[in-house]
């Protein structure tokens, strides 16, 4: 093993990445755009999750406080009221799930229509029913308890997921796809004709990619933190250790994809086949709490699940490294297994 050769390959790969301005720029811009997009969405009135249609109302002249529906319904932040001039027009929207429930404005009785196939319609129906119960009757039957402690904003919960997703894509495409392209174009064959060993080559690729990904993730973090003021509950060093373990594991997974093959299209398909389940099962966008047990079990087999679990525990809940030692151990074991498989089956030419 020669450190001189590994260093030369490491430097060359870094130059390749940094000078490829399109790829480099996209790696920085992509997570930033997603976080910025979500920031804008969640800072506006887009929090309205339910759409309540009402007729007959002239859309241009609708004044919510003058609508003849229960006052409680007008006050919900979660309900967006959508006016329609005619019943037919409103029914068409209801049938196409553009609204979740339809109410008649000013009838003798509160008449409403819902689609039985709409899950939101079911919840909204309960809210409509609740709206006609007086506050006094409600208060005599239930007691509201305030939750203690600082609440986590969705953007704070989402941010580690976006960073993890970006690291996942960059690891698999930046290592797996790139090495397959080098193999097809003969770059690896040229290296095979030198004293460079597979171990030296793969190690240089791995270290280069981990360093680049951690650096770009740090830049994205700084930029997003400047705009959204993320709440960091744990230690930055602990978060760094978790990101290091997670990135290492995902890059090693990329090395498995890179160990054989010369077909870029096939590799592209395989990477997508691996990425998409991780996107949904590893809780990048939403929690799988409440999903069936086999889904949760399957999620545990994915490295991104453990990476994001540990990252969120530290960033959102203030956990320490000892609290996430289980996840870190799994990531390191997975890294070792992936690296061993990648090195064992690596071929320069086929």
């Amino acid at each position, binding site marked *: 093993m020669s450190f*001189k*050769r590994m*260093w*030369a*390959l490491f*430097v*060359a790969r870094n*130059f*390749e990445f940094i*000078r*490829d301005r399109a790829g480099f720029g996209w790696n920085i811009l992509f997570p930033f755009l997603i976080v910025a997009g979500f920031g804008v969405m969640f800072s506006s009135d887009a929090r309205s999750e339910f759409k309540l249609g009402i007729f007959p109302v002239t859309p241009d002249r609708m004044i919510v406080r003058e609508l003849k529906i229960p006052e409680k319904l007008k006050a919900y932040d979660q309900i967006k009221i959508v006016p329609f001039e005619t019943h037919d027009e409103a029914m068409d929207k209801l049938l196409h799930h553009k609204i979740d429930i339809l109410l008649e404005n000013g009838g003798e009785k509160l008449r409403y229509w819902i689609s039985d196939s709409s899950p939101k319609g079911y919840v909204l129906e309960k809210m409509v029913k609740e709206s006609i119960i007086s506050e006094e009757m409600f208060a005599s039957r239930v007691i509201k308890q305030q939750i203690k402690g600082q609440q986590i904003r969705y953007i704070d919960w989402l941010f580690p997921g976006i960073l993890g997703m970006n690291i996942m894509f960059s690891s698999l495409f930046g290592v797996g796809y790139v090495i397959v392209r080098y193999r097809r*174009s*003969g*770059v690896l*064959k*040229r290296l*095979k*004709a*030198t*004293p*460079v060993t597979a171990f030296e080559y793969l190690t240089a690729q791995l270290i280069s990619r981990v360093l680049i990904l951690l650096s770009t993730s740090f830049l994205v973090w700084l930029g997003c933190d400047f705009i959204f003021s993320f709440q960091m509950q744990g230690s930055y060093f602990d978060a760094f250790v978790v990101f290091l373990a997670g990135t290492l594991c995902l890059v090693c997974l990329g090395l498995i994809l890179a160990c054989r093959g010369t077909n870029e299209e096939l590799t592209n398909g395989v990477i997508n086949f691996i990425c998409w389940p991780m996107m949904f099962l590893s809780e990048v966008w939403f929690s799988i709490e409440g999903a069936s047990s086999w889904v949760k079990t399957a999620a545990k087999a994915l490295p991104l699940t453990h990476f994001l679990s540990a990252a969120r525990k530290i960033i959102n809940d203030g956990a320490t490294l000892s609290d996430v030692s289980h996840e870190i151990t799994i990531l390191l074991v997975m890294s070792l297994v992936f690296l061993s498989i990648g090195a064992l089956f690596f071929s*320069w*030419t086929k």
Partner: protein
Amino acid sequence: MPGKSNIIEVRNLKKKYNGNTAVDGISLNIAHGSCFGLLGPNGAGKTTTVEMMENIIPQDSGQILYKGRARDKAFNQEVGIQFQHTELLAFLTVEETLKTFAAFYDKHLSVEDIIALTLLENIKKSLNDKISGGQRQRLLLGLALLNDPDLVFLDEPSTGLDPQARKHIWEIIKNMNKKGKTIILTTHYMEEAQSLCDTIAIMDQGRIIEQGSPENLIDKHCKDMDSPKNMESVFLKLTGKRLRE
């Protein structure tokens, strides 16, 4: 004639791809300090034979000895290879590419000397994906010579070059040969083989069908011919005029 004077000895080399025989029991010796040309029509098995000698692909059977022994780690330190189809890292400059490859070897010539030898001075700061085909070919030759190799494999080194650039490559190859370096050359240019090689082997259908010095081959096969007495006539006589591949 196996012995110390041979840098490469090949014994009964065979290779099949998907059941099709590419190389069918080749044996040959390449002497230290010679310039050995391997000729043949497309699909004759030249590249497969050379890549097995280069240790790029494994043989199915047969033996290849380098300096009288099996190839070991020293082999890659002591040989230089120029492949015909090789891409380089697109976002490195010519100079950085040479420096990167220089770092792979325990001993190497200076990058400046290689740049001067292969006339790359004007483009040494250019990115690899911005240089012309001829410049790229010179860079690939430079990479093959970087470690001051005892044995150099050149796979169609002058393909795609203009006559001036080709003559320049020939001069480099002749000078290397004069310094005692062994050269194994494959080419489709018969004039190139005749000018550079002291020994030529002609392959067809995975076998060596004729071998000797260019002069002997021309004497032997062009004696009673009306056509010009050169390697092209020898080649066409031995391999036929039927279009291959």
